[in-house]
């Protein structure tokens, strides 16, 4: 399988008056062509900032320390601004977090879709209109003819999210980045968006980087997943490797919290404590204050260990964790509900 994007040992920080905010510390992710790769982690763990490195849209106070961002083997960090401009148009499409704020308030949905298409192609006004109607249908907007004339403030959260996705794919990009596409939406609307995205990705054969803080969403949509904590990718692998044989304590704890909050399995569980302050990170492993297996060695930076082909974990005890049974009760519910959907 061809790798489209590979982020290697990326490290950088934000230069602020209050000191350095070390948001990206050690990021390693591979995005395979035609697959959905998930980037999961808590608020502030650096998911959005990791993704924005690919089109090089980082805030201006970001400073690189090291690392490479390879697109089909070439380091985009070394490209000229002109080349980058072209790449941003055709190479990467982004559906931003909080679509209501990201949509342009003064243009109708139809005008925005038309402009998005006409910057890439020489479609006529009428062709653009037809394309806009078709793409709104594909993102499952019930009445495209009506929506095309509406403004952002007239859309519900679910509709705004669909329009945001439509804007990103009307001219299909080589890589589609979806930032928290279900966050803040009602559960029933979340389910609709997930199924819409699944259909869209399959029918258009898109390569997607999907950012979310919800492991449930990862489980529904992703082929591969990177788990982030305080600007480090703690674990990366294909979804069954990571969900069923997690090789990192943080992933394990996250899976356990998710299961327990959903109810039904054991007691209420959460990870004690809170993520570290990015201005004042501890020596060694960033998870040490909350980790059940912390040992003296954890005061040194853990190695990135490949526990099986394509499955890596950043932990001193990666091998040991990998050989333990995973925390997910894989057959629970599936037996009863396996036939449905």
């Amino acid at each position, binding site marked *: 399988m061809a790798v489209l994007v590979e982020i290697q040992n990326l490290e950088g920080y934000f230069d602020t008056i209050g000191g350095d905010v070390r948001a990206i510390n050690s990021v390693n992710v591979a995005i395979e062509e035609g697959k959905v790769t998930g980037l999961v982690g*808590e*608020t502030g763990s650096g998911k959005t900032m990791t993704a924005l490195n690919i089109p090089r849209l980082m805030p201006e106070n970001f400073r690189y320390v090291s690392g490479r961002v390879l697109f089909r083997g070439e380091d985009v960090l070394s490209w000229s601004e002109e080349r980058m401009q072209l790449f941003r148009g055709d190479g990467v499409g982004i559906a931003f977090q909080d679509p209501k704020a990201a949509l342009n308030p003064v243009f109708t949905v139809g005008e925005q879709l038309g402009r998005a298409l006409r910057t890439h192609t020489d479609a006529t006004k009428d062709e653009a209109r037809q394309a806009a109607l078709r793409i709104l249908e594909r993102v499952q907007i019930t009445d495209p003819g009506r929506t095309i004339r509406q403004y952002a403030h007239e859309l519900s*959260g679910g509709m705004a999210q669909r329009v945001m996705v439509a804007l990103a794919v009307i001219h299909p990009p080589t890589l589609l980045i979806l930032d928290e596409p*279900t966050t803040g*939406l*009602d*559960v*029933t*609307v*979340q*389910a609709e968006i*997930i199924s819409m995205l699944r259909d869209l990705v399959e029918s258009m054969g898109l390569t997607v980087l999907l950012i979310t*803080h*919800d*492991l*449930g*969403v*990862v*489980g*529904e949509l992703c*082929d591969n997943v990177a788990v982030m904590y305080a600007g480090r990718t703690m674990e990366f692998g*294909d*979804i*069954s490797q990571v*969900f069923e044989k997690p090789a990192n304590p943080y992933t394990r*704890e*996250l*899976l356990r*919290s*998710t*299961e*327990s*909050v*959903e*109810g*039904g399995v054991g007691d*209420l*569980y*959460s*990870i*004690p404590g*809170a*993520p570290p302050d990015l201005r004042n990170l501890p020596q060694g492993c960033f998870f040490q204050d909350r980790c059940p297996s912390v040992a003296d060695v954890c005061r040194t930076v853990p190695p990135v260990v490949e526990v099986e082909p394509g499955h890596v974990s950043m932990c001193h005890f990666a091998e040991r964790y990998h050989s333990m049974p995973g925390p*997910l009760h*894989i*057959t*629970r*519910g*599936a037996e009863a*509900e*396996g036939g*449905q*959907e």
Partner: protein
Amino acid sequence: MTSGDGDSLLTVRGLTKHFHRGFWPRRQTIVAVDNIDLRVGRGESVGLVGESGSGKTTTARSILRLVDPTSGEVDFDGIRVDQTPRAKVRRLYRNMQMVFQDPNSSLNPRMTVRDIVTEPLKLHLNMSDGDQEQRANDIMTMVGLRGFHLDRYPGQLSGGQRQRVGIGRAIATHPKLVFLDEPTSSLDVSVRGQVMQLLIDLQQEMDMSYVLISHDLGVVRQLSKRVMVMFDGRIVEEGPTEQVFEDPRDGYTRRLLDAIPSMDGYRRRRQRGGTR
């Protein structure tokens, strides 16, 4: 735990709230809450679930008189809340409180945590400065924060810590009833359990009653033995939480249950062979 008849803390009958939009002749009426009955026993936690816009928050706001209900009776601990003169409504908040949906917008960013949690003490209780400071410290301990957090501003706290401050403010006067509006929905799962456990512990320690508003049925399952399902301003199903979850009678409840993104989605996909 369930509300015996003689032991109701809150009894609501025929509660209705209309909002109006636009002007004659195109004036529209939105029926946000439509003739609902609700009872909460002493020490009980009742769940109120439903999708966005179904009227959950408006129900709570109407009971608390944060908006005036269009009609209906609200009896709280022997007081007819709906007939309480506007000027005296504030006094009710000593015993009836609310934790708001979004801690980011419901906490004043220019007040310190100390000012936030002592404000209700100043309004409702005649406490000396020393006693207030003591109570503020007790509250910090109860909600799992530390004394030094009293000097922080909301912007200097994490989301989970801010939600704890919101809870601390609500329980400061030791109220009998607390409405919890989506108390965990803005939190990451890694800390959601901590806040839920805190709510369970506080309820037991202080013998409070809860009305827990949520569209996350997992949260309700953990905190409430009885649940009401709301749709389009009305209660469409009510019963013991386990029963409603295991065997929902209403089609809408079923839909709501199926919609929760959960690890079951992964399990189903795995069974179908959708993962490599």
